């Protein structure tokens, strides 16, 4: 690949290895992600998916190899990277308005408190982000009291408020019902199109994401690989990836459906990165 292409790419990994403490999680990861791609990250629990995000966020350094995010070395506090971590639902008693929570994505990292002169520009950006995720009806309610899907939209708005170019979403569909899973998937995909975002989204269940995914990055068995859904999302590949039997069904309209992954996602063990 020509050097100019590498500088343009959203993410370039070159023989990267990741460790958790002293334990090797995966190594030999080489891949390039183009701007505007929608990447779904798959892999069994504990394979190091969240660790990959921590590397991209600059929270931990690679144990080997080189990694470039938007043409730079990963660093904490990069405003061009929006991040929604994996989580359980927020504490019910969190006494904070959804809008204020989103606002922290704009200036939460700055010292002191908000000066009145700056406030107007900030409020406009926050309004836009809330509008972008269609969260206006409940943005002024206490975030702890909202449903999982509503919270997820506000978390997404918080990640969007700084106008990032890359979005890292760690299991945003976990613990949502099917309707919300599809809703959030479509929302992320349409945001990615209109705002020209590169998206990496960790998921256990690929089904709601099949209509929107460009490529699949899979993390398993101590390695990382990337491929087109048609190549990766086949019974044998997925079965090898997860180490348990998985079938891919095709209907008469050319739609795919993956069977067997739900059982895998059923037992949520702690990922080593957490």
């Amino acid at each position, binding site marked *: 690949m020509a050097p100019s292409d590498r500088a343009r790419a959203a993410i370039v990994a070159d023989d990267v290895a990741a460790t958790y403490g002293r334990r090797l999680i995966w190594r030999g990861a080489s891949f390039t992600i183009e701007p505007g791609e929608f990447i779904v990250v798959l892999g069994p629990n504990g394979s190091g998916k969240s660790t990959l995000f921590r590397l991209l*966020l600059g929270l931990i350094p690679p144990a080997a190899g080189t990694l470039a995010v938007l043409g730079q070395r990963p660093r904490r*506090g990069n405003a061009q990277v929006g*991040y929604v*971590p994996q989580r359980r639902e927020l504490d019910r008693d969190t006494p*904070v308005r959804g809008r204020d*929570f989103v606002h922290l994505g704009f200036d939460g*990292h*700055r010292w002191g408190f908000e000066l009145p002169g700056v406030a107007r520009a900030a409020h406009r950006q926050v309004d836009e982000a809330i509008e972008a995720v269609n969260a206006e009806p409940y943005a002024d309610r206490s975030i702890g009291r909202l449903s999982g899907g509503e919270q997820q939209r506000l978390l997404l708005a*918080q990640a969007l408020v700084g106008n990032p170019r890359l979005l890292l979403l760690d299991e945003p569909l976990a613990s949502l019902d099917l309707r919300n899973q599809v809703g959030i998937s479509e929302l992320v995909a349409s945001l990615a199109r209109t705002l020209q975002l590169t998206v990496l989204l960790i998921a256990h269940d690929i089904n709601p994401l099949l209509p929107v995914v460009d490529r699949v990055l899979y993390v398993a068995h101590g390695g990382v690989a990337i491929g087109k859904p048609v190549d990766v999302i086949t019974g044998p590949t997925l079965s090898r990836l997860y180490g348990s039997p998985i079938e891919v069904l095709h209907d008469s309209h050319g739609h795919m459906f993956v069977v067997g992954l739900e059982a895998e996602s059923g037992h949520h063990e702690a990922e080593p990165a957490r």
Partner: protein
Amino acid sequence: MTGLLLIMPYFGWDLVRDVQELFRYPFMQHAFEAGTIVALTAGVIGYFVVVRGLSFAAHALSHIGFAGGTGAVLLGLPLIGGLLVFTIAAGAVMGALGQRLRGRDVTIGIVMAWSLGLGVLFLALFNGAASTAVSILFGTILGIATRDVVLTAIAGAITLVALAAMYRPLLFASLDDEVAQAKGVPVQALSIAFMVILAIAVSEAVQVVGVLLIFALIVTPAAIAERFTIRPSRGLLLSATLAVLFTWAGLTIAYYLPYPVSFFITTIAFWSYLLARLVSSLRLRVATGFPRPWREEQFRHSP
């Protein structure tokens, strides 16, 4: 009759005269000055204590301060010095644990019990134990000297300035430490800094309400504020205002009645909290309709 009125504190409908009466003695002036500063600080930091889920840690800090206070008295050093050394050391350790501090109640409780035991030993070694113990445990606001007021003002100013400087990143880290960290907020350093500031605030507040009653000024106002606003800036202001009002009301009543100030402050805080719970649950019922289970059912079945 007139002679009696001159001796007894006067209270009537003439507010100007009441205020003049209240500030007639220097000890009351000092109590109001120190009390206001302490309450303001406690109310502001209390908001973060509640948001960060650290009310037990705040409680424990004050008890650890008891060992420091009694130790200082034993060595003939200023009480506040001993309080500060012990609470800051304990606070820094708790802060270094960071988010892992949540759910460490057992560990904190064990350390707290041991330091109370140490305090008892220090008291036993010191003659005149009873009055010292009572003043550390329940506060000595009516015995505050001018020098103490100045010290309290300095400590209060440091606390408030530090909190103002870290307001946004502290709130961010308190609500969502993972995203805050990714955004470049020094989450660990903030956690330590916050606990050290809390230690200073707790040491100050001990003078007013004592180590046993610290909850009344640090946690209760913030817990009430949390019920009435979900906007952090307003919550902070409401919490600070309530803490100051509780202290003023407690001092005023205690001036006219022969019972301890701490009793009145904690009692006002307690009943205010009960009232707040009642009012906020009524508001919730009115807002969501009555009775609630029926409404939830409606939502669930709506297409």
